[in-house]
């Protein structure tokens, strides 16, 4: 499994624990964490935990199930950078009531989503660049 994909899964676990912890603290004492905590929690869990888990696993299995190598390793690397730059900005924006940060983070996160979507379409559409690869 590619190191980048293992990083995606590992970061997903960290975000999952972090997102759960934030919600727990909020449940116990709503005044402890400032800002829009429910929205931060929801996005940490969905974009940080679920989506990054999907990124890591899909980048590994879809090329193999599709029978072609990943269309672009570089796109996937940039997807990792954008996703992990975007989400912290969004979290900071919500907790600090800074809409501009949320917007900037959202744009970066969306960039990662687009890179992933295009990379997967170009990989799975059965006209991949390279030779077929074995499922392993």
């Amino acid at each position, binding site marked *: *499994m*590619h*190191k980048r994909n*293992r990083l995606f*899964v*590992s970061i997903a*676990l960290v975000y*999952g*624990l972090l997102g*759960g*912890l934030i*919600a*727990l603290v909020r*449940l*116990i004492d709503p005044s402890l964490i400032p800002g829009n905590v429910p929205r931060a929690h929801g996005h940490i*869990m*969905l974009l940080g935990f*679920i989506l990054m*888990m999907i990124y890591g*696993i899909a980048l*590994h*299995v879809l090329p193999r199930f599709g029978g072609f190598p990943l269309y672009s390793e570089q796109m996937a690397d940039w997807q990792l950078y954008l996703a992990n730059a975007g989400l912290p900005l969004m979290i900071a924006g919500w907790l600090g009531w800074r809409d501009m940060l949320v917007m900037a983070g959202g744009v970066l996160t969306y960039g990662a989503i687009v890179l992933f979507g295009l990379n997967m379409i170009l990989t799975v559409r059965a006209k991949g660049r390279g030779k077929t690869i074995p499922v*392993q």
Partner: protein
Amino acid sequence: MKIELIVSGVCPFCLEAEKVWRAAAADHGFEFAVLDIAQPEGAVLAQRLKLQTVPALLIDGTLRAVGVQSPEEALALLQPARQEAHDRMQQMGFTFSPDNRGFILAAQAYLMLAGLGLLLNGSFLSDNAARPAFLHLFTLGFMLFMIYGLASHMLPRFTGNPIREGVWPWLQMGLAHCGVIGHAVGYLAGWHTLIVVGAVLTWLSLAAFAFRVWPVLWPAEPYSNSR
């Protein structure tokens, strides 16, 4: 599995033992190493095990025999380890292990329950009291359980590294069930304490999952399959 033979340069029987164990290790595909007590590695090991006799045989770091064994005796000594390796291979089969099957089945039950609740209450977009209950039945009950079942099944196969088994998956599952149900019931009944307890239990199940999966992603030994 690793077989280690501790020998001495002045021992007349050690060469014979080495031949037997080298052949046995090669036959069964086990790792094999010979350690001389005159060398630092062998000396440390001999001191730790308080060895009085060589050749001495270690299987996975445990002293199993001293002296020279026949090929038949070697096979008998390897039998438990071969059985263990066989059992491990069975667990790494293509089909779901019982715990992962349980996670996937439970996820479908939570999905149907969450869907029914959201449908009946019309609460997906509204803000009534049932919304967080059924929303969390969907996200924690369905999505989280699906991730538990699929990731625990697939990641060891992708990486070739074993996942922590034994009591851990069942503890994770118990915590997750109690957590999700407690959390949802807490919201429906308006019991804040139950909401918090459910959330704590669910979080602990996620921590248990991370504990199980981490060595799959980042094994202690150098990663050999980086691509």
